[in-house]
């Protein structure tokens, strides 16, 4: 059985392919087109999936789109009808798009697929599972569990904005849904907008800002109270009701009524270029804590309904790593598994899995205690195309060292990292999902007190306040961090253990935001956020032996098996896909070294034309 899953036309278009229940390939379109969060039809991602699996379109049993366009249109009509005459202009503007593209999705999909390669239109089945069913399937079927509660939370799909499901074998039952316009994802995005970040991509920036807030400040306490009294009513089962007079997303193109929010919180919406002040930090912390409270209630309700020991998570809100960490600490479930591509890109994979297990009733791969995401290294690899780059680099008169022995390369790279150099690390298949997990990564020494600032300003060109994440040898993770088990997909935030913390100066609370950040608060200052937290990736030898080896070599030199691991890209660009993308990024930033497969590129003037080890 060969099934292609597709997500597109909203944000984060992607494609994924399954053969007999095994995930063969998955990739996001943005990586190929170089447009961040590209929503367009994932032509390149589909071509890659077909190539990787050796399939032709005519061999596929089904192409599965990740939501139901008619049901979404029903929501649109009923919402505008309910709010009329509000939103009439926005409604008129959206009609041509629906009539031209989205309503005729089935016909348009066939047309677009035919542009890739010919196939028999009558024999190719097109399926449309619900948006949240796709998320739930992406969370449960690849998980290591035979049985689990499933929680999906995002902005909105068709009607649902959050669901609680129960997965048993190949069965997946939807138990409870929260419907639009009441949405935790949209509540969080509204605050993202109010604090001057971009909706749909700036949420993680607000999450990174929250720890700078002060939980004992008067502002923070006032904000939490105002959010709960005016914006969101939280029920015992975790369902919420948003007071629509404060929001505009249901009928307009803006998220909120800025004037009403201004009056409520006593501040104007922050402009994207405006300075971030204490009050913005306290507001970010307040909404983060309210979000965590709601997620914990939803998880408790999922536990009550399913009595399961396991929980699977997906949907854009599952990218809130801080909430994920607290969910694990709450010990509502024994084990939690989060889909590494929990957003809409992962919907492509979920749609294919839902068709395989539910529509066709096929079993997946046997579960042997491990998940079936293959470390989420499901994207393309380019091992044969490195030669051209090495030649070009020679002409630019900088040295390339090609290693025949990977161990030597790992030793050399570890040495450079220990000396404080920043290294781009490009290996094997690209990761599927928003995190770079050691195949498209920029690495640095987590012990360095200046590395956070160097990476943010000289290489990534991103907001100075944003923290970096550590990758750590799995066997050492519990020594440094308060972890309960592996975190291979960097989706949980945990605290650094007290033994590795350093005392804060007496005047710490009076320091400015950046001064607070630069206080050396642990033995890994570059990856320790102001609240001693870190978004951890644990690395074992099963899925990424090269990355594991590099960490081991670094540990031999420094005694610490911990590095900074940040995605291989600069601000507002997608993570690199090809060696050429990596090389371009390396040359235009102040990165010191670049490793692509077995080649080490540097920017120093060569002492000899080439070294071959």
């Amino acid at each position, binding site marked *: 059985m060969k099934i292609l899953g597709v997500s597109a036309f909203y944000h984060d278009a992607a494609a994924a392919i399954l053969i007999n229940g095994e995930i063969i390939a998955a990739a996001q379109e943005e990586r190929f087109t170089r447009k961040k969060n590209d929503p367009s039809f994932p032509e390149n991602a589909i071509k890659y999936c077909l190539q990787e699996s050796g399939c032709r379109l005519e061999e596929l049993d089904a192409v599965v789109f990740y939501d139901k366009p*008619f049901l979404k249109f*029903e929501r649109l*009509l009923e919402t505008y009808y309910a709010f009329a005459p509000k939103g009439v202009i926005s409604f008129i503007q959206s*009609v041509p798009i629906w009539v031209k593209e989205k309503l*005729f999705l*089935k016909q348009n999909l066939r047309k677009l697929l035919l542009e890739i390669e010919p196939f028999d239109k009558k024999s190719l089945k097109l399926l449309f599972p619900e948006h949240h069913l796709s998320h739930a399937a992406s969370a449960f079927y690849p998980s290591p569990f035979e049985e689990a509660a499933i929680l999906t939370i995002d902005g909105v799909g068709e009607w649902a904005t959050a669901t609680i499901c129960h997965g048993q074998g190949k069965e997946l039952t939807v138990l409870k849904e929260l419907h639009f316009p009441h949405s935790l994802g949209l509540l969080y995005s509204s605050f993202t907008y109010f604090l001057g970040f971009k909706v749909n991509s700036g949420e993680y920036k607000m999450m990174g800002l929250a720890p700078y807030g002060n939980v004992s400040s008067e502002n923070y306490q006032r904000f939490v109270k105002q959010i709960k009294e005016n914006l969101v009513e939280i029920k015992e089962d975790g369902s919420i009701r948003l007071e629509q007079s404060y929001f505009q997303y249901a009928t307009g193109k803006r998220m909120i009524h800025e004037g009403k929010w201004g009056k409520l919180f006593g501040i104007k919406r922050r402009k994207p270029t405006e300075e971030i002040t204490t009050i913005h930090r306290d507001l970010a912390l307040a909404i983060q804590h309210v979000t965590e409270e709601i997620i914990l209630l939803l998880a408790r309700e999922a536990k009550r309904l399913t009595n399961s020991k396991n929980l699977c998570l997906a949907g854009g809100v599952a990218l809130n790593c801080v909430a994920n960490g607290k969910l694990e600490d709450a010990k509502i479930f024994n084990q939690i598994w989060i889909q590494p591509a929990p957003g809409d890109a992962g919907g492509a994979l979920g749609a294919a899995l839902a068709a395989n297990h539910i529509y066709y009733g096929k079993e997946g791969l046997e579960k042997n205690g491990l998940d079936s995401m293959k470390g989420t290294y499901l994207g393309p690899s380019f091992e044969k195309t490195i030669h051209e780059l090495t030649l070009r680099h020679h002409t630019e008169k900088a040295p390339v060292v090609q290693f025949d022995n990977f161990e030597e390369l790992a030793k050399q790279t570890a040495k450079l990292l220990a000396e404080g150099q920043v290294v781009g690390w490009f290996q094997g298949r690209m990761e599927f999902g928003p995190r770079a997990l050691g195949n498209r990564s920029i690495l640095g020494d987590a012990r360095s007190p200046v590395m956070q600032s160097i990476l943010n300003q000289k290489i990534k060109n991103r907001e100075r306040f944003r923290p970096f994440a550590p990758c750590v040898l799995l066997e050492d993770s519990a020594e440094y961090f308060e972890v309960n088990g592996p975190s291979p997909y960097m989706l949980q935030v945990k605290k650094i253990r007290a033994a590795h913390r350093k005392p804060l100066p007496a005047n710490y609370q009076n320091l400015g935001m950046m001064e607070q950040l630069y206080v050396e608060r642990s033995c890994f200052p570059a990856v320790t956020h102001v609240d001693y937290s870190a978004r951890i990736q644990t690395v074992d030898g099963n899925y990424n032996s090269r990355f594991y080896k590099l960490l081991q070599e670094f540990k031999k030199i420094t005694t610490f098996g911990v590095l900074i691991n940040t995605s291989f890209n600069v601000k507002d660009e997608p993570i690199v896909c090809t060696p050429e993308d990596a090389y371009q990024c390396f040359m235009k930033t102040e990165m010191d070294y670049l490793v692509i497969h077995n080649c080490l590129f540097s920017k120093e003037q060569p002492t000899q034309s080439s070294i071959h080890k």
Partner: protein
Amino acid sequence: MEFIQDLLLFLKERKKWWLLPLILVILLVGILLVVAESSAVGSFVYTLF
């Protein structure tokens, strides 16, 4: 044809027949707008209003 068939099935499944006239009007107006945007019919559409 396939579109109409799918649409009717959807409305039946969801028991939302009241949406049918609304959808038909939207489709007609929408098609008119799309055609007007992209062809020589545009000048004739103007006189309709």
